[in-house]
């Protein structure tokens, strides 16, 4: 496949997970999590530390990234989010608290990068993770593996939310916390699990994205507008919408840059972030509720109905 497509698929898979992470947390706890930026970077550094110090493939360290991200989420929940939720803090307060947490994490990441440089003589401030990848079908393996993992996570999440008692309880709490509490569901536990899943997804997303872009301590800060763009494009009301939104944003960034630079020249590269943001704005103008607000089934049904109608007319004619 063309390089823009393989890189785009890798990057979009990562962005999809981070956008899904933002959406899940927002619908569960009303918190716009800015710390997703540093959580993603932490995911990348977890995988980088593994391959740089202990060898092997990046994929081996993905579960570890998931775990570290989940722990970061738990710390944020107990340290900041839970006390604020109990005080019935406003959405803006919840959001700003995660920004503060993000800055703390960013400082820790910078210190960790220095630690890797000083102790192990590594160069962790500009890392090309694709060098640690292997080839599959004549292309980078990540281009095949990461979308599959992202879809797998989406399916596991779907099964968890629809088929397990706790998953359904999560949906119930998200929809109506008062009634859920009156039903005996411990909303505290639901919020904690939301942070665990969200933190894990953000870290794994960061590890994915670093397979397509240069890994730096500020890579999360650089890409957070697009993570949020993905969540907003998805409609903010559906985790699946968020994941799809992130994927569309990621892929259009790479596809748009490639197509436009071919036509107008390399100067387009400087405006690469503008392309997916423009697509997001255009989509929201047509579908204000984002991708999850598109009546897909209705459209498909009407299309199917139209073609059926055509056939019928054809027969009668």
């Amino acid at each position, binding site marked *: 496949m063309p390089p823009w497509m393989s890189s785009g698929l890798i990057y979009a898979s990562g962005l999809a997970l981070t956008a899904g992470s933002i959406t899940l947390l927002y619908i569960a706890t009303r918190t716009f999590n800015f710390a997703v930026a540093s959580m993603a970077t932490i995911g990348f550094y977890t995988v980088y530390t593994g391959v740089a110090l202990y060898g092997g493939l990046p994929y081996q360290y993905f579960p570890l990234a998931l775990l570290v991200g989940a722990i970061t989420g738990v710390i944020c929940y107990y340290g900041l989010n839970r006390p604020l939720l109990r005080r019935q803090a406003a959405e803006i307060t919840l959001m700003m608290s995660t920004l503060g947490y993000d800055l703390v994490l960013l400082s820790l990441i910078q210190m960790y990068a220095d630690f890797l440089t000083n102790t192990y003589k590594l160069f962790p401030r500009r890392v090309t993770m694709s060098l640690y990848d292997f080839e599959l079908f004549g292309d980078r393996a990540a281009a095949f593996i990461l979308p599959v993992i992202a879809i797998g996570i989406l399916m596991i999440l779907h099964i968890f939310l629809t088929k397990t*008692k706790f998953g*359904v*309880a999560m*949906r*119930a709490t998200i*929809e*109506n916390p*008062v*009634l*859920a*509490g*009156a*039903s*005996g*569901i*411990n*909303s505290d536990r639901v919020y904690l699990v939301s942070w665990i899943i969200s933190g894990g997804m953000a870290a794994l997303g960061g590890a994915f994205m670093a397979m397509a872009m240069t890994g730096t301590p500020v890579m999360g800060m650089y890409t957070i507008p697009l993570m949020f763009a993905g969540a907003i494009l998805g409609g903010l009301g559906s985790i699946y919408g968020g994941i799809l939104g992130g994927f569309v944003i990621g892929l259009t960034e790479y596809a748009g840059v490639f197509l436009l630079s071919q036509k107008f020249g390399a100067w387009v590269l400087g405006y690469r972030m503008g392309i997916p943001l423009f697509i997001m704005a255009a989509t929201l103008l047509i579908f204000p509720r984002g991708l999850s607000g598109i009546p897909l089934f209705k459209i498909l049904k009407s299309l199917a109905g139209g073609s059926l109608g055509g056939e019928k007319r054809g027969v009668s004619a």
Partner: protein
Amino acid sequence: MLTVRKLNAGYGKLQVLYDLSIEVPAKGLTVVVGPNGAGKTTLLCSIMNIAKVFSGEILFEGNSLIGELTHNLAQKGIAYVPQMGNVFAGLSVMDNLHMAGYMLSKAEADAKAEQMTEIFPVLKKFIHRSAGTLSGGERRMLAIAMGLMKNPKLMLLDELSTDLAPIIAERVMMEVARMRDELGITILMVEQMAKRALEIGDTAYLLVSGQVKYSGQANSLLHEPELCSMYLGIKQLPGQGETKLSVAEEGSEGN
């Protein structure tokens, strides 16, 4: 079974209830009526630890409920059916029933859900349908069934008849009376359809501006023409000693 003593409660800094005391006897139907803004819903929210209790006592079977987390109250045998948002609209009817019986084992919840569909046959038809697609009356039946899923000792019902057609509201009231008579459940019901509620209730409290204006037998309140007319919109028919429902009553809502 439930004792509320000198309760002062509200939301944030806003006080709604003032030194309110009520007694809910076991296996009886206690009705709380009153005009808009009287604090009827706040009373139930205070019991469920949703509203803020400033001072006073709430005792259930002799144990204080103050500060008890809402999800623990369900485990103690208290079921709460809110006025609005009383079903999970995004979940199927079956999932709603299972969520209502969250602390039951899978086998127990299945058996209980089966029992609920026998008590409320209308739910059986829509068991796999999203609760958001049910009509107002069907939703209310589902909400009551969800309350019953917990095998409650005490049920708190908040304005079950709101927005329902009179004939459906009457059916809902009959179900409430049946829960007391056949299942022996203690019920504390806040109701805007005051006349009907007082007819089926055992004990009644009239709440006005967060304070109790009347307490006693439910039926007796219907023979207090001044209170009925002033606060409940129920006017006595001249010379008949009976009551009739006024338009004002139908339009009233809880706070």
